[in-house]
């Protein structure tokens, strides 16, 4: 009997409504299934429509799975998404992540925020050199030489709006409910940044145009793999 139900409902998903008014043809695709997401995470021409909703298309799959679980399980807080994800299995989250990760959409044009030269210097130092004395590696060591991320679990830093970057770093720094309930390699770094540093980085990153691909896992130094093992091991895999 249960088999029958399974089969029946499976068939239903391929069916097109045939009776009454205008029949709706529902494509049996992930794009159709995630319409509830793309209303905010704009696909196509809606990219960057709203400064605050982050781009998720093209981000590494492991990273996306990680975030979806965090939203669902209350480790990262944004209620509208928590409600949508509440009754979803890990398998489905994995599939949704895979879908968004596979999308290749054009990136929005970079912002044009005026910056003082000292600010630029400060940002570039953090991003490409880091402060070993404060145990802060260069952002590029983890986020890839072109800052487009490293597979499978470290996201790129370009193509994100400034407001979003500031909010994320702020979420970690406050150790509050927004992000980073569970400390990881990124929250440890963010906690050490000063206000001036956060501002400079957010402006600088938002001003760059995004291009290039995420780097393969092999480009991540072993000590950094170790440092971020929580993000990489726990969530890159399906289970």
């Amino acid at each position, binding site marked *: *009997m*249960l088999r029958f*139900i*399974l089969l*029946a*409902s499976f068939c*239903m*998903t391929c*069916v*097109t*409504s045939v*009776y*009454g*008014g*205008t029949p*709706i043809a*529902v494509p049996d695709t992930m794009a*159709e*299934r*995630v*319409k*509830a*997401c793309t*209303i*905010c995470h704009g696909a196509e021409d809606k990219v960057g429509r709203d400064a605050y909703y982050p781009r998720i298309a093209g981000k590494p799959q492991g990273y996306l799975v990680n975030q979806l*679980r965090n939203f*669902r*399980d*209350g*480790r990262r807080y944004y209620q*509208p998404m928590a*409600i*949508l*994800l*509440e*009754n*979803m*299995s890990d*398998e*489905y989250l994995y*599939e949704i992540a895979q879908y968004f990760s596979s999308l290749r959409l054009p990136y929005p044009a970079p912002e044009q925020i005026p910056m003082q030269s000292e600010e630029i210097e400060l940002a570039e130092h953090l991003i490409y050199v880091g402060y070993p004395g404060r145990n802060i590696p260069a952002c590029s060591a983890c986020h890839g030489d072109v800052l487009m991320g490293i597979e499978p679990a470290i996201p790129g830093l370009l193509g994100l709006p400034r407001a979003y970057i500031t909010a994320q770093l702020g979420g970690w720094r406050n150790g509050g409910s927004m992000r980073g309930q569970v400390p990881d390699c990124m929250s440890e770094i963010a906690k050490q940044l000063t206000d001036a540093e956060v501002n400079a980085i957010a402006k600088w990153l938002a001003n760059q145009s995004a291009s290039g691909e995420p780097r393969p896992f092999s480009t991540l130094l072993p000590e950094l793999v170790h440092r971020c093992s929580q993000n990489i091991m726990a969530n890159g895999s399906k289970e």
Partner: protein
Amino acid sequence: MRRLAIKYHISHYQFDVLLLACMVSLLFFSITQVSDVVAEEPDRSIEVQHGAYLARVGNCMGCHTTKGGQPFAGGRRLSTSFGIFVTPNITSDKETGIGLWNQQDFWQALHQGKSSDGRSLYPAFPYTEYTKVTRQDANAIFAYLQSIPPISQSNPPNDIFFPYNLKPLLAIWRILYFKEGVYEPDQSRSDAWNRGAYLVQGLGHCNACHTTRNMLGASQDDTLAGGQIMGMNWYAPSLSSYQEAGSGDWAIEEIVELLTTGITKRAVASGPMATVIKQSLQYLSQEDINGMAIYLKSFTENEGGNTPGVRFLVMSGSLQKHLDFGGQLYEKHCQTCHGSDGKGVPGIYPALADNRSVMMSSPLNPIRSVLNGGYPPTTAGNPRPYGMPPFQQILRNEEVALVVSYIRNAWGNRSSLVTAVDVDRSKGRN
């Protein structure tokens, strides 16, 4: 000096706790010794397996696990109008869980709502329903809980508001509203019906949500008459009224389909009901879920076909105009999924035409759907559900009111209009 005092205080306290723990464990040691001999059964693994199944039916894990936390280790916060309850750890951990309990303690909790120390438990733990569970089933659940690995996790205490935190009040409450007693089969009904009644009234604790509650949070009757869930902005419809979620005119298979997959051609489970299906009902055996369906159907079996009363009102011109605004919003935001005829797509997008959830006298759930959107639960029968977007960030309260008023009165639907105030009231809280 001050520091010293504090230090003394702490160690004194620790000493007390230690002493208490020793006494308690000694006490339990002697009891468990005795009952272990009695409980020695040959088929322990079968009992444990059966207990695991029953714990699913009772969805013990749903409440006794925090989001993303360790199963059965408790810590989930349940907010009610009486305060915030924090579920206890019911793993076999000896210090923080119920590892030192014996069968009798467990029975006392499930059947009488008393903790092992005799303390009366708050009915946020649905022992008001679980009291119907047989001793044999309770023992099986206990055997299962004792078989899962202990997890050491202490949870914060309940935070119950005055005056509900006064113990005498709970005692009075229990006298007034708590009926202790195992389910008694109705001999005039079939075995399947009785099985369904046993599960719905007992372990399934459907009445914990599907009921009207009085000011003291007591369920007003046990006919699953529906009501707003305490501490939640959701309305759990009556399962015994044809106008709400009664299923008298449904085929048994369709009720089973709703309860196991979360979606049928004319209904879809949302919010807390989706959670119940995801965590519990989808795992029920064919026999048990059938029994439930037969029992649920029997509430309204003889009413089938009655057209709901009240629903007819003649539309004035201004009313029609009001609804037309809603219609335009519908066309723009909703039609691609739910269709211009409101018929949706079976098994994918629910029909809104002739949909009871849309027309219920309480507009809470349809308003919530529009504000927050949602996905039916992922289940074995519907593992990759389609979703509804939230509109909270796009439509103003007035617009939500218009579009909900429209769907409540389009395609032959008839129900009350919704105002922006209703919409505002439906926001917030899960």
